[in-house]
């Protein structure tokens, strides 16, 4: 199962890595005693680990090649097959539904709170999926709209005492407006240029928030943001987490519902067409700019909604919550989950956000893990964890 060539290759790679990591893995300078310690055993370990890692890597690469050769027809992801099969679809959804319903009552507040974060990322991911996954616009400043939503709630509540439920639609509108305003000048750019400009805009919003003390207390942020009320009734802390949990579940369902409808509508198809081929798309009568702008603005709307929930959940926000890393995390969710695939993005968000929370050991190396995952996914499953599957239309075969 392992060829001689692969062993040789792995051996060379291991050697190379031993040389490469020699300075950091082996040499240790003790500046107090002024001595240099050589940890030779580390060299051995590096070699062994690299050797086997390389073997496994090559093995999977070969498997992938063989699989590609054996069946030309791509297999449909298992989740889609489950959902397409009427017999499994209902029990499958019911099981998930029941699980989601009882979750906050069975598990502790800590776990519920973590799941809320993950679900917020599901919303953000689905929103960014419209922009990146469907319309193919690489937006690296998505977090700016997230900040708009969060600050909208914090500020409107602080100054005017407006409640969560009223702010929700207002911030959605604000998100749309900001998205349109920002999209208008930058969407004339393409690909890499768009990525860089959106990255810049994302940072600008954060820097403005950090330096404009009168607006939102600068880096000190805004605290005491109230949790959502239930017809005027304010829950205690524990119940409030459960309540927010259900609000997020509701919003996620709403998002899925709308995204699903959009994906197979005139406008959703135009987004995908634009992503696949701009020139052909225009030649089919689609207004490139308008279509891009709608995707961008709609994505921003969802980010703003997510921001409101985030502010309500943490009850404290400051500009540090809206750094570039946040944008990158959301982008990872979309890319690793599966560009353009709603189910993939949901899976991506749950995996990427829950994993570091529960594997405390890797939490510090979050970005490293994301990076590694990104590479692995790109090599072995370039379409993401769960790739998108287009709608099947049925036609009566009878001819008149």
């Amino acid at each position: 199962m392992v060829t001689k060539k692969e062993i040789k290759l792995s051996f060379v790679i291991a050697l190379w890595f031993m040389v490469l990591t020699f300075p950091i893995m082996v040499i240790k300078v003790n500046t107090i005693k002024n001595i240099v310690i050589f940890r030779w055993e580390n060299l051995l370990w590096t070699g062994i680990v690299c050797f086997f890692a390389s073997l496994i890597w090559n093995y999977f690469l070969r498997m992938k090649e063989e699989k590609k050769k054996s069946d030309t027809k791509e297999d449909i992801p298992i989740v889609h097959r489950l959902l397409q099969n009427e017999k499994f679809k209902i029990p499958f959804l019911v099981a998930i539904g029941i699980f989601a319903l009882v979750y906050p009552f069975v598990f502790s507040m800590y776990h519920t709170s973590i799941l809320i974060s993950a679900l917020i990322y599901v919303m953000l991911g689905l929103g960014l999926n419209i922009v990146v996954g469907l319309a193919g616009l690489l937006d690296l400043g998505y977090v700016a709209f997230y900040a708009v939503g969060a600050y909208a709630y914090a500020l409107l509540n602080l100054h005017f005492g407006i409640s969560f439920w009223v702010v929700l639609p207002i911030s959605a509108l604000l998100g749309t407006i900001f998205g349109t305003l920002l999209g208008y000048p930058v969407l004339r750019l393409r690909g890499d240029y768009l990525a860089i400009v959106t990255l810049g805009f994302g940072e600008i919003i954060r820097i403005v928030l950090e330096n404009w003390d009168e607006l939102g207390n600068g880096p000190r942020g805004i605290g005491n943001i109230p949790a959502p009320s239930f017809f005027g009734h304010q829950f205690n802390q524990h119940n409030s987490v459960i309540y927010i949990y259900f609000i997020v579940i509701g919003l996620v369902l709403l998002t899925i519902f709308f995204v699903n409808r959009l994906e197979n509508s005139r406008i959703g198809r135009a987004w995908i067409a634009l992503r696949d081929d701009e020139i052909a798309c225009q030649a089919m009568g689609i207004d490139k700019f308008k279509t891009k702008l709608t995707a961008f603005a709609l994505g921003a709307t969802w980010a703003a909604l997510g921001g409101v929930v985030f502010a309500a959940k943490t009850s404290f926000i400051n500009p540090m919550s809206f750094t570039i890393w946040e944008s990158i995390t959301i982008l990872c969710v979309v890319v690793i989950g599966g560009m353009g695939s709603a189910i993939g993005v949901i899976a991506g968000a749950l995996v990427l956000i829950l994993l570091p929370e529960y594997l405390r050991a890797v939490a510090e190396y979050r970005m490293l893990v994301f990076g590694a995952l990104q590479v692995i996914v790109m090599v072995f499953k370039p379409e993401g964890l769960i790739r998108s599957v287009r709608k099947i239309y049925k036609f009566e075969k009878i001819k008149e």
Partner: protein
Amino acid sequence: MEPILNVKNLTMNFGGLKALDTVDISVEKGQIAALIGPNGAGKTTFFNCITGIYEPSEGLVEITPPGKPTQKLNGLKTNYVTERGLARTFQNIRLFEGMTVLENVLIGRHCRLKSGIIKAMLRSSSQKNEERKAVNDSYEILEKIGLNQYVNEMAVNLPYGAQRRLEIARALATDPFLLLLDEPAAGMNPQETKELDDLIVWLRDNEDLSILLIEHDMKLVMSLSDNIHVVDYGKKIAEGTPEEVKSNPDVIKAYLGDESEDA
């Protein structure tokens, strides 16, 4: 009667290169016209100029859609040109790879449909009806072109000849009065070429379409065309019926290297 496409004095400069040099071409209603010329003559550039993908350096592009007044296309964005009834295919196939065959055709319907985002999210009854109709219309187009067995296949998985036909189907979905085909037979086998020949004639006779095609397959061009325009190095060197063009000395000279193909 006015020609449905009237191009006068069209010039396109790429830096120092004159890809098109004062070209005049007009297409009559109900005609199958061909645009031929050696490689690099400027044929595709001509299509790009009239469909607004390139902005011509000089010249006039006018259309007279059946039953409508004459209008200028110069300076119009590509999507508006398509809306006005010019549809095209591409020499190097440009299908939407992430979509099924049906969806590719549905994209062609896009500019004839209205529902926007809000309607799609609420799935209003008008949106649903429109969507249903669009899907059925698209399916009918696929039936006409003979691609209905592939409806739900991904466009990229189609055989080559079928991909070329899908490009035509997609262009048809935009409800054009003039179809611009850029080397529709390129890469097809003789059987597929024959079917394409029949399809093009059928389209003209049954769909009330006029067709302007670029093609290197001389047999196809000679058998199909009512009128042939020949360009070489960006200049128009001849125009006429297949017989006239075949015997034109300038054309023979331009094609000297391709004589074997010509025969």
